[in-house]
């Protein structure tokens, strides 16, 4: 039995990395997909890959920082598929590498905007729809940086901690509906975002490998498997949790 059979799932940041890998796992598990990304081409590529895997999928370009755009994204999902069962709020950015005193206000506002405010905006409109259906499952992408320090990335760390605050709050607010709200906390994962960081500082790859007890980076699909489970009815009594998928990082 497919884990997400006939579920309608919305994925932001669906054009690459963890979003794309998760989309393909959702497709395998029988979901119908709306793939949102600022990068239209990336979203369209993922949609084509999902269709090739036998799923229905549409791509929508969306700037998740804009409330009207997010509202429209949910509306388009309903127009296309009639409902919204699962939402994976995954779009995110890393920001510049700098210590706190050298971090700029511009970088702060950019990172907190996309990594924190946009997650709230997505939840705000997704929940409004899920309340009409009296059910739903939301997964937010936090990070191991939501559970501990993140030197040289204070805005990212503050945002990802904040995502857990949002996750726990919405989980208790809507538990009786029930709308379940959880977070996945990936370790350092082999994605274009991380590759971009490593390209700037090649030595970081070894550091990243070393900080995980498993001695390697995560693969995007390893995150996607956890998201698929959290999104599915198999996790029907799970809400408000941060689920680390991190090769043991938070165990030490």
């Amino acid at each position, binding site marked *: 039995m497919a884990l997400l059979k006939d579920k309608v799932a919305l994925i932001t940041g669906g054009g690459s990395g963890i979003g794309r890998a998760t989309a393909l796992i959702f497709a395998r598990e029988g979901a119908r997909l709306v793939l949102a990304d600022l990068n239209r081409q990336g979203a369209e590529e993922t949609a084509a890959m999902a269709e090739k895997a036998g799923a229905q999928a549409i791509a929508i370009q969306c700037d998740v920082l804009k*409330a009207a755009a997010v509202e429209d994204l949910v509306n388009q999902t309903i127009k296309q598929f009639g409902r919204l069962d699962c939402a994976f709020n995954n779009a995110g950015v890393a920001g510049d590498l700098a*210590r*706190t*005193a050298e*971090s700029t*206000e511009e970088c*702060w*506002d950019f990172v*907190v905007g996309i990594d*924190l*405010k946009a997650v*709230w905006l997505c*939840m*705000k*409109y997704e*929940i*409004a729809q899920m*309340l009409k259906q009296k059910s739903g499952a939301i997964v937010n992408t936090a990070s191991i*940086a*939501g559970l*501990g*320090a*993140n*030197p*040289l*990335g*204070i*805005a990212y*760390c*503050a*945002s*990802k*901690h*904040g*995502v*857990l*605050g*949002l*996750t*726990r*709050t*919405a*989980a*208790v*607010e*809507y538990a009786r509906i029930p709308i379940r709200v959880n977070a996945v906390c990936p370790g350092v994962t082999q994605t274009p975002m991380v590759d971009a960081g490593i390209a700037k500082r090649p030595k970081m790859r070894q550091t990243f490998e070393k900080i995980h007890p498993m001695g390697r980076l995560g693969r995007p699909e390893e995150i996607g498997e956890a998201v698929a489970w959290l999104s599915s009815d198999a996790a029907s009594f799970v809400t*408000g949790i941060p689920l680390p998928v991190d090769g043991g990082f938070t165990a030490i």
Partner: protein
Amino acid sequence: MRLADKVALITGAGSGMGKAAALLFAAEGAAVAAVDIDEAAAVEVAREITGNRGKAFGMRADVSNPADAQRMVEETVKRFGKLNVLYNNAGIEGEANLTANFSLEGWEKVIGVNLRGVFLGMKYAIPEMIKAGGGSIINTSSTAGLSGVRGGCAYAASKHGVIGLTKTAALEYARRNIRVNAICPGPIATPLLERIAGFQKSREVTVQSMGANTPAGRPGAPEEIAKVALFLASDEASYANGGVFAIDGGQTAS
């Protein structure tokens, strides 16, 4: 005197926990910059300190405004010659609405003061602390930094975020002898908690009844938080860094 010769900047010093800390830090020998968005309240706290032969001045700052954050640090250094302690304590509760009903303006306001304000305070204070050979930063998080809060998505997001800020800055500057810690107060009898109690539709909800729900069976007093802040500010806490201290009458243990 546990803070002899130290210079401390306290935001939100005009009332509640900030005021209690300003009075206590001054009594322990610190020169205190009492900063608040309510200028009259800040000046009054400073007057109370100087009336007791302590050193202090009061000034207005909106901590979410970068120019104000920079100015409060500059003014402190201008008046007292250095900065050793920053207590990022200013905070607001914001509106009480479920996540799907929370307003965009309400979101910006809470994140601006409670999260961006803490970042900006650290950003401008840290260079001064490096010049001074080290320092101690105390950030006010909350039990809402550790768990969810019905009707307070922005508040919980901001207070969780403060813990992220605290841990990251703690690691970045550990070798510069700057310690950064967070306090997570439970229900403390302050004007802010009175306003939160006022949100509840039922008239039975009061500061007392909110405190009664903790294992301690009562709300905390602002002075009980100030004493923890004093410890973290002082050299007694020289090995405490990146810590998250729940001071909540047992609330988060339950």
